[in-house]
């Protein structure tokens, strides 16, 4: 039986999530034995044409060409998996969704006419059907290996959907929100990193995006009541997953309230 064909595609991103496959140093050669790595430009020159059994997509959609290309990729992949914050929520470059893109172009490039970009940076699922999303900025390489292993035996990948708080307790880190009053996104962020930040005495800043049924209103209210300025909460939420619907709506709501309070005052 021929080996299943795996392809890795890149859109607007830092390359860190596809690097995670090469960073699985102990598993990489075993993975290469089990699946045919048919298309993975960062790692190999050989390119085997589709269709592919699994396509891993890194990066967000930021150009008109990207929109056409992701549709073509979808047609070639039996399972399409979006990997990383850029592919699942638009990434850090989605901050431009709140700005004026022409101003951004002028801020960075001397000859703005040479630059062709859409006004927005959007996740893959906004454009095509995505079969599975692997979160993280960057993704957890062991979750990626789990995803490939699960695919090979035909089951759904086991990826926890609870919050970073659960991982934090398991790690026996002291809660920095309660003990130090530091606004931390752990309660509303999906697990996966292993609660690294709190164990390094700093706040979670949401690399794995919103957890299921996150209560952003309650958490923002709590931090606000304890003295965090609305602007600081907005910036904490507008990060690598800032354009994920739950985080986006929360930061927009805080901004609106702050604005109307300012007008009233």
């Amino acid at each position, binding site marked *: 039986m021929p080996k299943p064909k795996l392809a890795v595609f890149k859109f607007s991103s830092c390359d860190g999530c596809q690097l995670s496959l090469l960073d699985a140093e*102990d598993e990489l050669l075993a993975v290469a034995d089990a699946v045919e790595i048919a298309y993975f430009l960062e790692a190999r020159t050989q390119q085997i044409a589709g269709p592919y059994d699994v396509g891993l997509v890194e990066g967000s959609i930021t150009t008109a060409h990207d929109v056409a290309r992701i549709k073509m990729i979808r047609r070639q992949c039996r399972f399409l998996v979006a990997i990383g914050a850029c592919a699942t929520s638009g990434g850090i470059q989605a901050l431009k969704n709140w700005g004026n893109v022409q101003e951004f172009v002028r801020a960075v490039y001397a000859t703005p006419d040479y630059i062709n970009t859409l006004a927005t940076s959007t996740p893959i699922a906004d454009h095509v059907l995505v079969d599975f999303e692997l979160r993280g900025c960057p993704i957890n390489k062991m979750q990626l290996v789990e995803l490939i292993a699960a695919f090979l035996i035909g089951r759904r990948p086991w990826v926890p959907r609870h919050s970073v708080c659960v991982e934090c307790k398991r790690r026996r880190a002291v809660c920095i929100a309660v003990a130090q009053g530091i606004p931390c996104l752990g309660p509303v962020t999906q697990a996966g990193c292993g609660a690294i930040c709190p164990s390094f005495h700093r706040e979670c800043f949401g690399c794995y995006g919103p957890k299921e049924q996150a209560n952003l209103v309650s958490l923002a209210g709590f931090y606000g009541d304890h003295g965090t300025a609305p602007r600081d909460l907005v910036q904490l939420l507008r990060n690598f997953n800032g354009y994920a619907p739950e985080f986006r709506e929360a930061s927009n709501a805080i901004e609106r309230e702050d604005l109307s309070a300012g007008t009233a005052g």
Partner: protein
Amino acid sequence: MPANRKFEVKALSRVEGEGALYVKLEGGQVDWVELNIYEPPRFFEAFLRGRKVREVPDITARICGICPVAYQMSSCHALEKALGIDPGPEIRRLRRLLYCGEWIESHALHIYLLHAPDFLGYESGISLAADHRDAVEKGLRLKKIGNELLTVLGGRAIHPINVAVGGFHRAPSRSALKALLPDLEWALQASIETLQWVSAFDFPDHQVDYEMVCLRHPHEFPMNEGRIVSDRGLDVPVDEYEGHFQERHVPQSTALHSVRMPGMTSYLVGPLPRVNLCFDQLSPTAKRQAEACGVEWPCRNNFKSIIARAIELIDACEEAIAIIKEYNTEPSSSLASYIPRAGQGCHATEAPRGLLYHRYRIGDDGLIAEAKIVPPTSQNLGQIEDDLRAYLPGIVNLDDAEATRRCEHLIRNYDPCISCATHFLRLTIDRNPEPAVCTINPMQRG
């Protein structure tokens, strides 16, 4: 060989990011060479405006998944200058240790998985492993040890979370660092074997009169600090960088090309300049091995950058061991405090692929008012084009597939990080005895 033909390669592989190469030959002469970078722009310099100082190293890390530490380091140093703070010698040593981790990880990746296959006639590290499993496994273990060092110090290998303006959120425990020593001792030996392995490769005889540029420090091999020097007499503090180097925006590219002023000439950054210009600062084992590896230094053949990378691998392992051995007390404070205030600061550090310059202005509100970032690959882009122009006449009589392979190999000498410079390559070569119309083909991605 037909006199009139045209060929193209869909994409250059084994580089980080996406772009294209266009070459036009007329009557057997190289008429036009152009690197097109069309990795979509991500506008970091724009959306850093209005962010808090403390957020900057977390954000700039996301420019590059291969060398996030370099971005974090240049950001922190530049902002600390703007704020007028000095985190002190203990933090300085730990930052150097963190950078050693990134050099080990990035150099091992490039040598074993991306570049060695070019010399040995394989299309990838994965194919190389089929015949040379031991070598590739050695490379992967080296890479893993670099990543483990990053994890202990930075919290994780890609986008470390422990780096802060003012130092580290938490100092690493003595025991966690000391536990890495046996692996690093193995890595030092493996790096020496790596140098012996790559030194025996066949190298094209390709001498170029590069202007080599890197940092130079009076007491150490350059990573975090130094003056900007070149082999043509440049020797200036980093504050004067923008007086001597300028970015130009060229059509068909989302990367800015840097040139050396005033002559608007190309220059080379990366491992070869560092080893050439700072040879005396190499660690004892690295220097001894570099002297014995059969290369005459200074070396002007960038195909031998793989040798320079292996030398730096030895240096980084030996440095890391020395720093950890001296780390006997954890610093009482890992983070210098500061109050965000108006100011301006710039700094350059040595990313694995070369000089990385950052400048920031902090506004009266304590937020970032302006950011400027010049990645190593945008500094090398002009030189890659010049290098191809010099190299192509010697290979135009080869068949299309072989000429293309050689061009890609040359580009990989630079370990280009196109994502950083904002950006995969598609090589198009027009062979035409008559003046031809230049057509640039959009890359067929996917």
